[in-house]
């Protein structure tokens, strides 16, 4: 399957991946509205971590043996049979946060207001994830992994 990979040497910590992710997963897709007014407030599925000159853009890596899928108490997290993306069925998620405890990347987020987890879905419906398209320095690459 295709995954988003990260080249640390090219990442300048601009956080545009987070911003475009949040926009992509919003209702309105209007920048100002998304960040200031939209309710429920959309959360980004990618996280930028920084320490000195090093910055990391981190999202779900769609693990082969995905621990979150096996730990999910309700069956809300599954691997799509066709495109192999680990997807969340929001209807079945009860926000128990068990997936968070087993994610090796710490990349599953809590949407406390909605009682749901949020995770990267590789922008279902798009050819290329929106973070990859909008990375100004090509630090993110979308590639077949095997």
């Amino acid at each position, binding site marked *: 399957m295709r995954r988003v*990979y990260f080249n640390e040497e090219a990442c300048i910590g601009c956080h545009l991946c987070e911003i475009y992710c949040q926009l992509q997963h919003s209702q309105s897709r209007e920048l100002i509205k998304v960040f200031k007014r939209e309710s429920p407030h959309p959360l980004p599925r990618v996280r930028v971590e920084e320490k000195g000159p090093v910055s990391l853009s*981190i999202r779900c890596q769609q693990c082969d043996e995905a621990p979150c899928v096996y730990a999910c*108490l*309700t069956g809300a997290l599954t691997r799509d049979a066709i495109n192999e993306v680990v997807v969340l069925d929001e209807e079945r998620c009860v926000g128990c946060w068990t997936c*968070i*405890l*087993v994610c*090796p990347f710490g990349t599953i987020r809590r949407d*406390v207001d909605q009682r749901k987890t949020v995770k990267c879905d590789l922008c279902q419906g798009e050819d290329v994830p929106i973070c990859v398209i909008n990375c100004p320095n090509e630090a993110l690459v979308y590639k077949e992994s*095997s």
Partner: protein
Amino acid sequence: MIKEERIKYLIIGNSAGGIGAAESIREVDKVGTITILSDEPYPAYSRPLISDYLAERRPLQRMLFRPPDFYEENNIQSIPGRKVTGLDIDEHNIQLVDGRAIIWEKLLLATGGSPIMPEITGIDLEGVFTFTTLDDAKEIDQFLNNYHRRKIRAVVIGGGLIGVSVTEALVKRGVDVTIIEMKDRILNTILDEEASALVETSLQQFGVEIITGQTVDKVTSYLSGAATGVTLDDSRPIPCEIVIVAIGVQPRTELVSNTGIKKKRGIIVDRHMTTSNSDVYACGDVAEAYDFVYGENRLTPIWPNAFIGGRVAGFNMAGVQTEYQGGTAMNSLKYFGLAIVSAGMVTPLDDSYEVISQIHDHVYKKIVLKDGLIVGLVFSGDIDKSGIIYNLMKDKVNIEDFKQTLVADDFGLVSLPEEIWKPGLAIPPSALACGISSVEQTEEVLVGE
């Protein structure tokens, strides 16, 4: 004449472990016959959601662990609501309560656990319940619905996961709850003192009374056959209309009695989830499987371990050699919105362990170490990166050189040495070389990494 069926894979238990096994079998064997037996009359449902059923009457359709067409889609025969009455290991034969017999090639015991009932007076009175199955939740729900006189009071015997879960659900239904915990604090097997205190405070804010260090001597009745209270070991009476027994669960091993299959408290399995009989496997709450924190077989009766154990068993049953990496006690709690996660050894056994912790505002982070390796963790409030710590523990990464950063507010993957985060995030060599064909050696797969 008794009807006899021949089945390749027979799975007893239709919950996390049974489903995990059925799915992995189907990944590698599309045609071998699979039968799942269960004494519960429902398709696989998420057992932890019985709290939501009781609290907010969440319907069964929204508790299903797999879509309604799961069994049909995967060509799995499901026989729900039928008890197994006999098991003959040598003959590979099982008998059901309706007289049916099944001959199996590979058998998985995923029978789970059953509530431990204390031998006290009045335990069989009306109004005394357990809380491990959907039917338990339904019975309590029925009782609440039929009780119209005044405010209902409940005594929950046992302050473990089940006891606190039923307490939260009952409080949401407007019931006054008193928890009686034998030890000095609730949730004492999965949380440390600090985190237990956080949950206690949270429960008390919602009106729950918690009595620790005491036990229930008997369930009392002033009405014919119905519970009207309990008496504690110091003779103190506590009036109530409902008693929930939640002192623990024990592995349901009765099927293997007199079969020669090795068991202690649970059925002993090796790293392939095989029992002492090579055609019989076990997983989940009934099994004592490898615990990677303690380095020995233990009961770890939690949903994710049951599922992964079942998954490993399924692959091995289908002939694909697969090793169980091991599990450990691991829980995520959110009672009344308070987020707490814990895993492994949360309270050091002795002075040879080191504890690193941080507590401020609503954040509590604690890691237990031994010889540079993480052996336990408890996080409350800020739990979002706890998975990174859990995996460092599971992968036995030596964290001596950066241990202080693990409980810091700004902790993340970036706090770790590059060699830890890089392999997971950077483009793997196989992707760079995409287009060049390569021959892969078949390796033993590790599941649950």
